[in-house]
């Protein structure tokens, strides 16, 4: 779809509608603001210091804010907080059912396609704002604490920022779909948790019962939606040089792959498309 000006006007109109719905709702506003406040608390990790006489521990000096590692570390930590926005997104959808306003919006002349598009644009906007926020914050933290400040090093590892954006869009699309499917915010969030457990069980069965040898199990489970999202940014803790050196001393060679892979991105984008198409089909098929 080319971004011609009528499309831009449509997108602006749909976003304006959706942002009014969210912003006038006090609970959504408070949750959204606290999400960003909590995000900025990541910066406070820098001030974590233990001073135990001989053993001095200052997290910021251990290299977690070194470029390019900081992109990995911050996007991983920031992604944990996404549940706050997920609540906002699930309830923005479920409320339309419980208030009867989905019906009224359609009667007032919104098409079902426009309705889904307005929700998806909001999801993308939330993900984009969060991504920009994390980018700017990491850049500032890095410039303050990183041992390396060469431009080429500062801007290497930016694939984590892209992965973060894709991860949020995918996760929020899943939440949106659950909101439409279940129609009640609490139940939709419950369903999300149940789904998470089911994926865990499936993973367990695959890797301990069906394919205990080799990596067939992880090759299959990487296609599960939540697993695919978590595979986008793997945990960075064992990558920290301090922890890595402890591992080496204990004789454990760290061969873990920490990179962001194109196929992980592709799997999550595919899920996003599937969730949005299913949301649209559900809306189209249902009588209100």
């Amino acid at each position, binding site marked *: 779809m080319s971004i011609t000006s009528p499309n831009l006007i449509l997108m602006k109109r749909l976003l304006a509608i959706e942002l009014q719905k969210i912003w006038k709702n006090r609970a959504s506003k408070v949750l959204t603001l606290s999400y960003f406040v909590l995000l900025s608390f990541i910066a406070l990790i820098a001030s974590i210091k233990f001073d135990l006489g001989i053993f001095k521990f200052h997290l910021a000096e251990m290299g977690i804010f070194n470029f390019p590692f900081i992109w990995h570390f911050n996007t991983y930590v920031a992604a944990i907080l996404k549940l706050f926005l997920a609540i906002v997104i699930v309830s923005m959808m479920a409320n339309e059912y419980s208030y009867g306003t989905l019906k009224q919006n359609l*009667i007032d*002349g919104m*098409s079902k396609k426009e309705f889904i598009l307005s929700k998806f644009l909001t999801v993308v906007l939330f993900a984009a704002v969060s991504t920009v926020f994390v980018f700017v914050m990491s850049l500032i933290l890095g410039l303050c604490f990183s041992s390396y400040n060469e431009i080429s090093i500062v801007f290497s590892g930016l694939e984590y920022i892209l992965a973060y954006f894709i991860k949020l869009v995918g996760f929020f699309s899943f939440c949106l779909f659950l909101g439409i499917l279940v129609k009640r915010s609490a139940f939709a969030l419950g369903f999300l948790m149940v789904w998470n457990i089911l994926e865990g069980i499936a993973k367990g069965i695959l890797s301990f019962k069906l394919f205990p040898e080799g990596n067939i199990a992880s090759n299959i489970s990487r296609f599960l939606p939540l697993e695919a999202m978590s595979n986008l940014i793997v945990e960075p803790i064992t990558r920290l040089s301090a922890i890595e050196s402890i591992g080496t001393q204990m004789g454990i060679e760290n061969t873990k792959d920490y990179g962001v892979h194109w196929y992980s991105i592709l799997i999550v984008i595919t899920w996003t498309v599937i969730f949005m198409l299913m949301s649209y089909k559900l809306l189209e098929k249902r009588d209100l």
Partner: protein
Amino acid sequence: METILSITNLNKRFGSVHAVKNVSLEIQKGNVYGILGPNGSGKSTTLGIVLNVVNKTSGDYSWFGGTMQTHEALRKVGAIIERPNFYPYMTARENLELVCKIKNINTAKVHEKLELVGLLERENSKFSTFSLGMKQRLAIASALLNDPEILILDEPTNGLDPQGIHQIRDIIKQIAAQGTTILLASHLLDEVEKVCTHVLVLRKGEILYSGRVNEMTSNEGFFELESDDKRVLKSVLLQHPSIDKVIDENSKVLVYLKSPLQASELNRYLFEKNIVLNHLVKRKNSLEEQFLELTKK
């Protein structure tokens, strides 16, 4: 005459329930239509289909001669269905402004419409604080924001107190007087009789009558008679060529006609046969009696 909405052979099934059966109708500009029917007769489903919230099973409908897509057409329509649906945490004004954004019109009319329905002094109160009557009036204001070609009202006075009902009716009459086409679904007959020019009677998803209100009520005029000797009166009446049947009702008899007959003619005829009447009235069935007659089976 300009056609606003035409429906042809519309059907809707919910599983085994056939909620709308082969409904066809045309809505012409400038008329006030009533859809009458008991609860569960398919009124709301029919409206739901043309308003894009219920999927049809078969049949067709087109807005404004089929020149535009349904959702575009709906921006020129004002509609309220069953209960007022707004965002409870927004004020009256904010809710109407949101509707303006959806309909893609500017917010200039918000003030005027709030004034029309008498909610101007409450424009900054949250919707959740409104009484049902106020909510329903806000819904009407919202439906009027775009000065619609047609206003669709589904049970607009449902659940309101007498004062609320009166306010809503006044507003509807005021809108009808401005020449706006109105489609009013109701099970309240006097409501339809008071405001509508045309009527459509539905029962179990089928159209039983479709036409002008006054034609529905006038096609079967009848007489109410009383005399001292009822037996003689009845036998004499049955000899008259225009009379279809004669029915007892307490001390009176009801006379139904095959062909038109003036009260004076009937009186003269009976007088010539030496019958003097104590009571002679020519009556029309009310819409209510007609409706019950139609939906009796």
